């Protein structure tokens, strides 16, 4: 029996096990929406802006093992989706984004709501397709899912012209797909794996550096076993948080621009580094030359060969699925019974503990102003460290990463690569739908939240009782911090005047709003928001935080990992920087 292209698409998504798709209808996708109306196997979530559809689908994937699915119309629907697609691309998140397109005869005619979606998204997708013939539709969808989730995952866009959704064809969904030009590697080279183990066993100052690849690659258990069985120190990148338990003593905290003192010092001073699904990016190692100025041997395990030797030349490159490679390494280690030099390792730990004892995340408490760090700490306590936490981008994101200890992978969802403000709320929504029983908190700021605040409406419609923790300092905090440090306290356009009453906004959308202005109210308010009474409600918490707080440690542009700007209590003279002046802070 022949069915329409729209029905073929819907049936294909069903075959892929779709549970939720996130989208927004429009002219070019009306046929598809009609086919969705006539099925009940998966649910459609109607967002309020297409960017949010992609972030929600993205977080749905980040917080589960599934591929996220989004559906947008042609033209503005498609362009609105681009920021979300680029976000997923930078963080290697498997997504399939279906975009409507004008009918094939109209392509190139500057038709109403026409945009070259394949052209626009080409640099920010793993792959994309324009389906010109209905006969190719089912196979293209199969390929899209296969490409999105295999190898280094990423978003795949499938652009479908309206006439293809209306045409008729027989439906047969392929069982498998073979793409001769796409053969992702899984197993690492055995010789290289052996070399890596050899290097590790000879190490005096070993260090395990774990990135988002270990989270996406499902390798947290293997990472944990490697680190624990050999008693090694471990750090996670912003994207890797949760790959190794954040509350474990062998964890030195996040590294990088706002990493902990001990994590960064160990990164600079280790002699054998095992990089697992991480890519030595600029926010992590800063200047490659400085990083390499302390001699070290580097093993780099990554599924994407182009991540290896991109910024840093390594001694033992291993291309392969991190989970597979780590399993083989663990087997070799077990079989050999070898361990790194115990005395040297003990010395190394002694050095690390000395760094750690400087307590770089210490901040001065205040009874007058709410310290943003204290809100994250209280959130950690009250949620028992169990919440799925999403964040937006800025100071609050760094404080969330520093002070909430993530023990599980896929528990921390943030836009690490692209740094997309507006990610947090739609992401919380997507994560809540993927994990209906989980507590989901979105740590945000008054700047970021306003970039997708309209999604409060979607949260109401779909009963996603996420808790929004807004650290409201009336400033675009990270911009303000840079202006304080590097632009002579000229706070150009980083102060937001005329902020709305967020409590009223929350209430207007049918949610619960809270305004918290005193440090003494932080904990009670959080307890109430996370109480059984409000379990089914979205609670928007507007914390009025200290405007002058900065994120420390910090590595300035051009500085090395061991050249951090330290928090006041760690500075030798303990004096504030000369240009520190809050005179014109409001």
């Amino acid at each position, binding site marked *: 029996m022949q069915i329409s292209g729209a029905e073929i698409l819907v049936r294909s998504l069903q075959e892929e096990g779709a549970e939720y798709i996130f989208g927004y209808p429009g002219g070019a996708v009306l046929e598809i929406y009609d086919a969705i109306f006539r099925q009940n196997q998966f649910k459609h979530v109607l967002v309020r802006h297409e960017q949010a559809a992609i972030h929600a689908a993205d977080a749905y994937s980040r917080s589960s093992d599934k591929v996220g699915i989004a559906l947008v119309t042609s033209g503005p629907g498609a362009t609105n989706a681009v920021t979300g697609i680029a976000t997923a691309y930078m963080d290697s998140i498997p997504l399939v984004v279906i975009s409507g397109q004008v009918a094939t005869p109209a392509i190139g005619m500057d038709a109403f709501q026409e945009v070259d979606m*394949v*052209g626009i998204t*080409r*640099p920010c997708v*793993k*792959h994309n397709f*324009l389906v010109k013939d209905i006969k190719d539709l089912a196979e293209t969808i199969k390929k899209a899912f296969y*490409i999105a989730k295999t190898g280094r995952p990423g978003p795949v866009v499938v652009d479908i012209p309206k006439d293809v959704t209306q045409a008729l064809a027989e439906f047969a969904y392929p069982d498998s797909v073979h*793409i*001769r*030009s*796409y053969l992702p590697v899984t197993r690492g080279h055995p010789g290289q794996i052996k070399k890596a183990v050899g290097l590790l066993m000879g190490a005096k100052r070993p260090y395990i550096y774990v990135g988002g690849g270990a989270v996406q690659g499902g390798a947290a258990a293997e990472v944990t076993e490697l680190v624990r069985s050999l008693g090694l120190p471990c750090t996670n990148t912003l994207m890797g948080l949760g790959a190794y338990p954040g509350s474990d003593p062998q964890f030195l905290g996040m590294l990088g621009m706002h990493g902990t003192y001990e994590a960064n010092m160990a990164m600079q001073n280790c002699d054998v580094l095992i990089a697992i699904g991480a890519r030595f990016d600029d926010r992590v190692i800063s200047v490659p030359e400085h990083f390499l100025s302390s001699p070290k041997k580097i093993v780099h395990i990554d599924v*994407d*060969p*182009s991540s290896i*030797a*991109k910024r840093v*030349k390594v001694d033992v490159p291993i291309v392969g699925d991190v989970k597979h490679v780590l399993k083989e390494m663990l087997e070799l280690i077990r079989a050999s019974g070898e361990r790194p030099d115990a005395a040297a390792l003990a010395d190394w730990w002694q050095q690390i503990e000395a760094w750690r004892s400087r307590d770089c995340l210490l901040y001065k408490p205040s009874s007058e102003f709410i310290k943003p760090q204290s809100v994250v700490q209280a959130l950690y306590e009250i949620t028992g460290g169990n919440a799925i936490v999403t964040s937006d981008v800025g100071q609050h994101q760094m404080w969330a990463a520093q002070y909430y200890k993530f023990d599980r992978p896929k528990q921390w969802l943030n836009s690490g690569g692209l740094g997309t403000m507006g990610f947090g709320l739609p992401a919380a929504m997507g994560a809540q739908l993927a994990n209906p029983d989980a507590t989901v908190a979105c740590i945000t700021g008054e700047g970021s939240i306003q970039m997708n605040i309209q999604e409060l409406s979607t949260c109401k419609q779909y009963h996603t009782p996420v808790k929004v923790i807004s650290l409201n300092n009336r400033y675009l905090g990270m911009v303000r911090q840079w202006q304080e440090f590097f632009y002579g306290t000229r706070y150009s356009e980083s102060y937001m005047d005329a902020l709305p009453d967020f409590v009223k906004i929350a209430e207007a959308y049918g949610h619960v709003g809270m305004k918290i202005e005193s440090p003494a109210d932080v904990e009670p308010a959080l307890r109430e928001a996370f109480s059984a009474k409000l379990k089914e409600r979205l609670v928007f918490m507007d914390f009025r935080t200290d405007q002058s707080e900065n994120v420390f440690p910090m590595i300035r542009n051009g500085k090395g990992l061991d050249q951090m700007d330290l928090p006041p209590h760690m500075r030798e003279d303990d004096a504030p920087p000369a240009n520190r002046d809050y005179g014109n802070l409001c």
Partner: protein
Amino acid sequence: MKHILSILLENEAGALSRVVGLFSARGYNIDSLTVSTTEDPTLSRMTIVTHGSDDVIEQITKQLNKLIEVVKVIDLNESEHIERELMLIKVRATGKEREEMKRMADIFRGRIIDVTEKTYTIELTGTTEKLGAFIEAIDRAVILETVRTGASGIGRGERILKI
């Protein structure tokens, strides 16, 4: 250093722009690019001449391989290879210059493929350097128009690039 990359890719709409987009997005250089279908109509063969340090060339190769439609990439510079480029050059050929131009074309093994009273159009093949040498050898002032295809390359001997 100059490198000649030979790429086998799916003969599909958009594949060429993915390759070109990659070079511009990542700031790599393209000195020349040629592409056409092969004896297998599902495949295109592309030759890109680029330059950069060994690290850059390694990244280019890896990034090209990452493109879904790219089947294979080789750097022809890694072993012996043959490189050819075609040039069509229209020159003024009047009076004394007419005889001189004919002689010069012969020396470079070019062929005159179109003649008017005032011009010759010369077809010349060879390495990029040879074509450059021809342009250097004749009087710049007589050149009316130059069209070059960019280099195509193939491995010498039994070395082949196939699926």
